[in-house]
């Protein structure tokens, strides 16, 4: 459809559906197709106009075989699923509401430096998060993404093609993917995500470690997702994500810049394109095009896409390519 609209006759055409990990999953697949000599450049497009009517299922959330074992009990899918993970994490490790709220607050600070974010110009405090309505305990309204309309596109190209571009090239230095389950009951430990495997492979293929990363772009459908991602991507030990986010400044000016566009929590989640915002923000930072929110000396970014309920993970290490 996109090809015809553009008048392009592609030598490679594919559909990727890894939920929130679709964008990151597209990138290494495109790179693999280029590496196989199938094509020179791949246009990756993600767009979504979610149905705004309450309770109406988006076409990207199909009826899964496990649905009858969950819908019968009033499962809300993501909202209740991530709440169950947050509740278990709080029980095991003492993670507090305030610690999770800190993630939302720091990311809102980032959004306030990004005129394109949905919540630009509307800073919040931890107290604002904790006094927003509980949706699924322990998750409050301001810990949950805001659906919106939107689209994202990027081009993955062979090295010589990329270098001929007027843009500063960004290189895919490493990647890893791991998919684990459809139903939450199939996840042995709902506080341990497949990011453990996907990030390990991303680091191994890139030849770097967490300490080398300048900017983080971690899928953030909920506050708890960021905490679990930081733990499983090796930035702190399992269970220490709560104190870790409390002790570190996740803003663009901080010691651990994370989701500098505001994250989807504050930038908005345009369906699958929401996950792609983590890719485009990392690219902007690496190019030095971050504007008011630019992280200084930004050479290496870690991007994680997370789909389903902590199920589909694809992690990338991106590098400024003109060094």
């Amino acid at each position, binding site marked *: 459809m996109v090809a015809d609209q553009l008048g392009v006759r592609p030598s490679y055409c594919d559909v990727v559906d890894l939920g929130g990990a679709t964008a990151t999953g597209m990138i290494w697949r495109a790179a693999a197709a280029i590496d196989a000599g199938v094509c020179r450049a791949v246009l990756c497009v993600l767009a979504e106009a979610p149905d705004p009517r309450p309770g109406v299922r988006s076409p990207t959330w199909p009826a899964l075989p496990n649905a*009858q074992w969950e819908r019968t009990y009033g499962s809300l899918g993501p909202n209740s699923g991530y709440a*169950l993970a947050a509740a278990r994490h709080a029980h095991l490790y003492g993670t507090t509401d305030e610690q999770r709220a800190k993630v939302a607050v720091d990311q809102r600070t980032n959004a306030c430096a990004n005129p394109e974010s949905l919540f630009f110009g509307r800073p919040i405090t931890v107290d604002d998060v904790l006094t927003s309505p509980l949706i699924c305990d322990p998750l409050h309204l301001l810990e949950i993404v805001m659906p919106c309309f939107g689209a994202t596109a990027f081009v993955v190209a062979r090295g010589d093609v990329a270098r001929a571009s007027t843009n500063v090239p960004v290189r895919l230095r490493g990647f890893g993917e791991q998919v684990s389950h459809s139903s939450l009951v199939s996840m042995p430990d*709902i506080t341990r995500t497949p990011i453990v495997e996907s990030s390990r492979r991303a680091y191994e293929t890139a030849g770097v470690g967490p300490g080398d990363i300048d900017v983080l772009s971690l899928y953030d459908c909920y506050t708890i997702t960021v905490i679990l991602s930081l733990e499983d991507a090796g930035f702190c030990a399992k269970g220490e994500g709560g104190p870790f986010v409390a002790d570190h400044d996740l803003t663009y000016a901080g010691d651990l810049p994370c989701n500098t566009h505001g994250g989807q929590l504050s930038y908005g989640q345009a369906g699958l394109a929401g996950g792609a915002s983590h890719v485009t923000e990392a690219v902007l930072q690496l190019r030095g095009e971050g504007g008011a929110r630019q992280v200084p000396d930004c050479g290496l970014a870690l991007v994680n896409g997370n789909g389903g309920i902590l199920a589909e993970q694809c992690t990338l290490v991106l590098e400024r390519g003109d060094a």
Partner: protein
Amino acid sequence: MSGSAEVEGIPPRPVPESSPYGEPYWAAAVDGRLVIQHCPRCDRLQHFPRPWCTACLHDELDFVDVSGRGTVYSCTVVRRNPNPAFATRVPYVLALVDLDEGVRMMSNVVDCAPEAVTVGARVRVCFETVDDTHAVPCFTLDPEGT
């Protein structure tokens, strides 16, 4: 046995969707029994029901009665649900329950204040009648349960 379905003004929960592999589970619930899919070849239990055993791929599985006792692995109080069948039930407890037999299932913990349900709490099965031919296994707190 849970009274929720009979409370005036609260519509019955949706009838469980049919699936060729899940029928014995729902049929047993009408009789007040909790059954779990079992592989006679490798003697494993699995939930939710599937066409085959995920451990050995044997495809002639049966269902066995379980104790109905378990522990809350995690729980959340759902306070908003746009689905009309649940909109009048909020707040309600959605839980992952680890049965003593080693199987995890999603269910509701009912007949108590939602905030009374905590991770690690002992629970036992109860059955909420949907209509003459459908019932849903739920759980109640079982503080004496060991």
